[in-house]
């Protein structure tokens, strides 16, 4: 009984201590916030004299607060939020204030932490505050075991260096997730510059996801000069790479592309066949009508439909073939052919 009471008192005591500590921390934060807000607004609207760079006068209370790690973290959090929302001189001034107060050291320290969430946080802070001098350390983390840290490091390198940052594709063994590929494409869409010359080399990477991502990059940025390298990917051992290569060719096709696709068609699995028919619907010509017509008797209905759509898209001659198809009045063609014609007009 006595020991139960003792345990209960300990728990209550611990809870009280925790609540008191939390309250004290909150009060301290509430006290710091207006000071930081004042400093940040001063920095945002700071106009350096004679182009001498930013050197915002730092009040004593701020300098004193800088001794507290929690104060510095609060300041970094506010700077990061501000930099995310502000551009132009206001955004630049926030970066200069970050540098003036040497807050990059705190963020770099986080990269050395064993806790992955702190590493990820440090990477984000350094990238948003444009700390290019930390690139070497962040670059090492682009192939680290911990997924979240790896993703943050890859995004950060691209944020800091744009297309040149993609050199991490040379070294990564881990797969780039579908989501990460979208993220990187989005970041690159905002970056000035062009794809590096070595882009073609990544098509032969041993990492399947790197080959797929490179094909997406080539399509997105219409790298016509890589057409032949992409055609080579049609022989890739991975059907996902072949499928992506087929979709990529739709964006960078030449007069020989349709022929290349038709040549490999018979050896493909269903999803790649579908991609080929979809692509031919966009890049095909009257020369391909014979091939497409033969695919109307494919085993799978979705392939029959895609072949019919491609014929309809090619133009009046393709539609004429659809109308003259001997089985057009029988199921399923009596449903597929009108739908394909209708899809062309919608």
């Amino acid at each position, binding site marked *: 009984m006595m020991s139960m009471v003792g345990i209960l008192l300990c728990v209550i005591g611990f809870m009280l201590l925790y609540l008191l500590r939390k309250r004290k921390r909150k009060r301290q934060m509430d006290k710091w916030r207006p000071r930081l*807000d004042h400093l*940040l*607004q001063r920095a*945002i*609207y700071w106009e350096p004299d004679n182009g001498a760079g930013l050197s915002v006068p730092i009040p004593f209370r701020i300098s004193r607060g800088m001794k507290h790690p929690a104060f510095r973290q609060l300041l970094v959090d*506010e700077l990061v*939020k*501000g*930099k*995310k*929302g*502000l*551009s*132009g*001189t*206001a*955004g630049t001034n926030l970066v200069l204030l970050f540098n003036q107060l040497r807050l990059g050291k705190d963020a770099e320290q986080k990269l050395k932490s064993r806790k992955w969430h702190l590493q990820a946080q440090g990477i984000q802070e350094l990238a948003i505050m444009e700390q290019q001098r930390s690139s070497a350390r962040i670059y090492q983390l682009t192939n680290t075991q911990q997924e979240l840290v790896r993703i943050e490091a890859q995004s950060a390198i691209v944020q800091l260096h744009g297309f040149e940052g993609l050199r991490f594709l040379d070294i990564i063994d881990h797969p780039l997730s579908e989501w990460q590929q979208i993220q990187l494409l*989005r970041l690159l869409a*905002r970056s000035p510059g062009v794809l590096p010359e070595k882009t073609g080399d990544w098509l032969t990477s041993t990492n399947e996801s790197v080959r797929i991502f490179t094909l997406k990059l080539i399509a997105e940025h219409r790298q016509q000069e890589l057409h032949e390298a992409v055609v080579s990917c049609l022989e890739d051992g991975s059907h996902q790479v072949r499928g992506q290569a087929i979709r990529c060719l739709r964006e960078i096709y030449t007069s020989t592309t349709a022929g290349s696709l038709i040549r490999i068609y018979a050896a493909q699995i269903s999803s790649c066949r579908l991609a080929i028919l979809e692509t031919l619907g966009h890049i095909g010509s009257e020369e391909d009508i014979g091939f497409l017509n033969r695919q109307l008797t494919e085993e799978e209905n979705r392939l029959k439909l895609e072949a019919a759509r491609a014929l309809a898209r090619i133009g009046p001659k393709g539609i004429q073939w659809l109308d003259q198809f001997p089985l057009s009045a029988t199921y399923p063609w009596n449903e597929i052919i009108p739908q394909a014609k209708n899809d062309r007009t919608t």
Partner: protein
Amino acid sequence: MRILVAEDEPILIRTIELRLKKDGHEVFLATDGQQALDQFTASLPDMIITDIMMPYASGLEIISFVRQQTGKRIPVIILSSMGQEDVVLEAFQLGADDYITKPFSPNELSVRVRRLLPA
């Protein structure tokens, strides 16, 4: 000019407030959607600058409310993030007059506000 600013990020709302005050405007602040709707009814502003994503009521709901409640044409500028192009289009359909993408420059916002001021 009386301007209502609705934005849930404290550093951004303060930055906008200072810039607009410097330009000589009277500024009303709201840090969530519901506050913005209340503030609109109470202060009857001449212009609204609103973030799209906010707690309790979105920027789109604010535009709909404003367009339904008043016969007067009040200019609305929306603050959007990268990748919200679809929402921006929806905002224009609802009657927004201009938009600015984050990260934005306070100076640019000031120019956009001036452009929408009645001559």
